[in-house]
């Protein structure tokens, strides 16, 4: 269980995963924030108002997958680094794109090969960096996109440069 190990189980993850039909349409956010902590920057970060909190800031964020465009504006705003963008509609067969916040040094460069890690920090595979966004407005939280095997998209959640 997440609360014992820090690792989200696949059962716990289910409610925040978009449906297969939505995944096929293109990039979408997955918000792995499963606890009612007092925090809401993701709500105001979303330009299309796809993230809602029903009864105040200790609510868990509710993402409307159909409204979400997968733009990634919420990713660097999350203090918990808990938001990921998955893009299953990638032009390389068998591959998908995964974007995540990255706050370690060195920040990888585009096309660099990095280790893709799972939720326990275990090596999954090598992955190519497809994109790095690190503007001053992100205040030192880079958003790194890697190309990963499409069938491992829900397992990979970190990189080692």
């Amino acid at each position: 269980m997440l609360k014992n190990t820090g690792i989200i189980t696949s059962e716990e993850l289910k409610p925040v995963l978009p449906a297969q039909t939505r995944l096929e349409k293109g990039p979408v956010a997955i918000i792995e924030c499963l606890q009612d902590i007092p925090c809401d920057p993701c709500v105001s970060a979303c330009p299309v108002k796809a993230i809602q909190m029903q009864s105040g800031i200790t609510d868990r964020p509710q993402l409307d997958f159909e409204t979400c465009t997968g733009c990634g504006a919420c990713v660097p705003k999350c203090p918990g680094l808990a938001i990921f963008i998955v893009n299953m509609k990638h032009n390389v067969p068998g591959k998908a794109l995964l974007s995540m916040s990255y706050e370690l040094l060195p920040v990888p460069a585009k096309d660099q090969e990095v280790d893709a890690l799972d939720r326990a920090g275990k090596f999954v595979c090598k992955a190519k960096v497809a994109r790095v966004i690190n503007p001053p407005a992100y205040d030192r939280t880079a958003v790194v996109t890697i190309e990963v095997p499409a069938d491992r998209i829900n397992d990979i959640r970190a990189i080692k440069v």
Partner: protein
Amino acid sequence: MSRNTEIFVIGGGPAGLSAAIVASQLGARTLLVDDSARLGGQLIKQTHRFFGSSNRDAGIRGITIAEMLCKEVKDASDRLTVLENTAAVGFYANKEAGILSQDAYERVSYQAAIVCTGATENSLTFENNDLPGIYGAGGVQTLMNVHGIKPGRRILMVGSGNIGLIVSYQLLQAGVEVVGLVEGMPTIGGYLVHASKIRRLGVPIYTSHTILKALGETGVEGAVLCRVDERFQPVPNTELTIECDCICLAVGLTPLIDLFQQAQCRMVHVGELGGLVPLHDSAMRTTNPDVFVAGDASGIEEATTAMLGGRIAGARAYESIHGKSPKAEAIVEEAREELRTLRSGSTGERIRWGRERVLKEVGAC
């Protein structure tokens, strides 16, 4: 030498800075003293983004919040005097206190004091816990994030509250290997997103474990852990040796309360708030009507609630001198509503119990 002020704020952390800013903005002559060389308290080492409401400071790094508060202090400098490297060392009768700077001892006479002394770190009892290389998490943060010094190469973290989790992450950012995080409880104490963040970077989290002893002669060379049962008793034959050159203790904080006792404020022990705290009402006023409290000294929480408590104390201390003010009332109302939302939900449960108890006890006196 002696100084005269309307409001005397002790402590330049998030609570004290907020109290001094509000009091001086409302129009009170304010003196703020802090015993360190740089204002900001714990904020100056908090390199992570804050949780909370985006109406306030959520998503902003603690170090940036410190800069924002210091700018407000500067902007209020016609009414607000700041003395760094100056400690408040005692209260006298007749609304007087003593302050000690590097080259002078002075008396301060005030009309209202706001005491925001923060907290001290708890230690833990285990064999060899006095070996060089065993630090408190606050000490590690100061070394690393203020002075740029790594505390070690391989570090073991003890305690899974937000401080233990966040400092582990900051150690990874500094290039230090975190060999594990130990927690006596069966579940992680801090926010789970912080735990996931270090877990996916490879840090093992040992819940239901404790540290039995530190290994080494002249410095830390390792640690022996073991599993504990539901009554926190070591389970035989579960010992596990971990190699490390540093052990970091993040096992809670205790309010720093000596000045309140000296000011003859009534104290109450509330476990949920970290131990003995001065009794205080919803205006943050203690049982000594000239003394207000805010921040961790009023109960261990975190920086955002400390700032809001500071704003309430600053506004009410102003009113205690200048009478009712609609502007002060508005500041208090806003801060109260924000505190209410921050403390709602399951993660705020213990704090709510603790604060309710303080208010109940105040009502009873």
